[in-house]
């Protein structure tokens, strides 16, 4: 093995990693937002909204991310490549995150809802102040896990030509005729990203344990 190419092509790794990070970060934000809305629709007592959210979640979870990505990129003709990546990833992860949040809400003791009601709090106040903070604490490990998966799966956007880490690594493989070594470098970078994230989640978990 020979890693001399790194000296010459390290910039590809940097921009690729930056794009992967930006894509993942935006997906986390929009995925969380979408997941929250979907989960609240699902626990709402408004039947049509509940049904719609359930159908959406079932469909997204039941179809490959790759197909979703293609549908969005080629279906919405004028969509910029990066936006297509963010939209596809967000649409996909929001469905998984919705299920995680819904499970978290269901795990909050029923008495907590009753206490908020008895004090005269509205459902929105109850969710904001009491239910969601407790739900998030319960689902933090699952959520962290979802984010790790999301970083790894983001590599798929390379197929539409988005210059993420995976795409740039392929480029280097082509230029240098080294089929193997750039992949090792990519694996190490992906691992550093996911390991850092996992560590961060563990730290937040520990901080939230003060009330245990």
């Amino acid at each position, binding site marked *: 093995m020979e890693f001399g190419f790194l000296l010459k092509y390290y910039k590809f790794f940097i921009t690729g990693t930056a794009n992967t990070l930006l894509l993942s970060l935006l997906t986390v934000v929009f995925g969380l937002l979408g997941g929250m809305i979907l989960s609240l629709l699902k626990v709402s007592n408004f039947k049509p909204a509940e049904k719609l959210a359930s159908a959406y979640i079932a469909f997204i979870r039941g179809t490959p991310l790759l197909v979703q990505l293609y549908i969005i990129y080629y279906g919405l003709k004028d969509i910029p490549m990066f936006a297509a990546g963010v939209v596809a990833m967000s649409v996909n992860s929001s469905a998984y995150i919705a299920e995680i949040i819904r499970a978290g809400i269901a795990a909050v003791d029923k*008495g907590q809802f009753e206490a908020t*009601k008895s*004090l005269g709090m509205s459902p929105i106040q109850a969710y904001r*102040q*009491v239910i969601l903070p407790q739900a998030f604490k319960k689902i933090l490990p699952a959520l962290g896990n979802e984010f790790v998966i999301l970083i790894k799966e983001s590599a798929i956007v390379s197929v539409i030509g988005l210059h993420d880490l995976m795409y740039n690594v392929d480029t280097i493989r082509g230029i240098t005729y080294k089929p193997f070594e750039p992949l090792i470098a990519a694996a190490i970078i992906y691992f550093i990203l996911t390991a850092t994230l996992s560590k961060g989640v563990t730290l937040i978990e520990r901080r939230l344990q*003060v009330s*245990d």
Partner: protein
Amino acid sequence: MIKLKQIRKNFGDLNVLKGIDLEVSKGEVVAIIGPSGSGKSTLLRCINFLEQPCGGEVHFENELIHDKTNMNQYREHMGMVFQQFNLFPHKTVLENIMMAPVLLKKEAKENAYKTAMDLLEQVGLLDKKDVYPNKLSGGQKQRVAIARALAMHPKVMLFDEPTSALDPEMVGEVLEVMKKLTHKDVTMIVVTHEMGFAKEVADRVLFMDDGLVVEENTPEYLFSQPQHPRTIDFLSKVL
């Protein structure tokens, strides 16, 4: 102050309340006793609509409470204390007490803080103000829960078996706090298994069985000269 007319409630085929009439006037302390499954807790929960009654009327200060009533506003007037405390575990004791007044009554933080500190002093837990609920004993939790309900300055306090989940040695401290409330002219409806407490502080005791109020009287009479055979039977078992 509160008037219930023919309150009925069923869960599926199970008739839990079969038409309950109850009138509670201001400052009165009413204890509801009876065997498990007699509908005591359900009745209490129908008063603040944690359970929607299937029939009958709830009147509060001469106003009929119904679907169009602003339920949240109505509930602000009713403090409730639960068997399982239901404190907010992610908030400190002080935050638990201050949350509703600041959020709902738009009370200034300083005022809410003052009220909360006063209440904590009343329930004897000033030193626990910055502690999270999980660090408290059952009796302490329930005293905080009482303070939390009182912070909204409710016109009525509803107690749903407040001592049933407590270790025996902690029952006393909670009853002590409740007793102090009765001296302050707080209107109270208490579902309880503590006959001693009912006897000592209630103005009126209701005995419920099988979804009906079987007998009601002042504690002196109800406990010493029960009339109905079921009351006699129940009291002979618990006293």
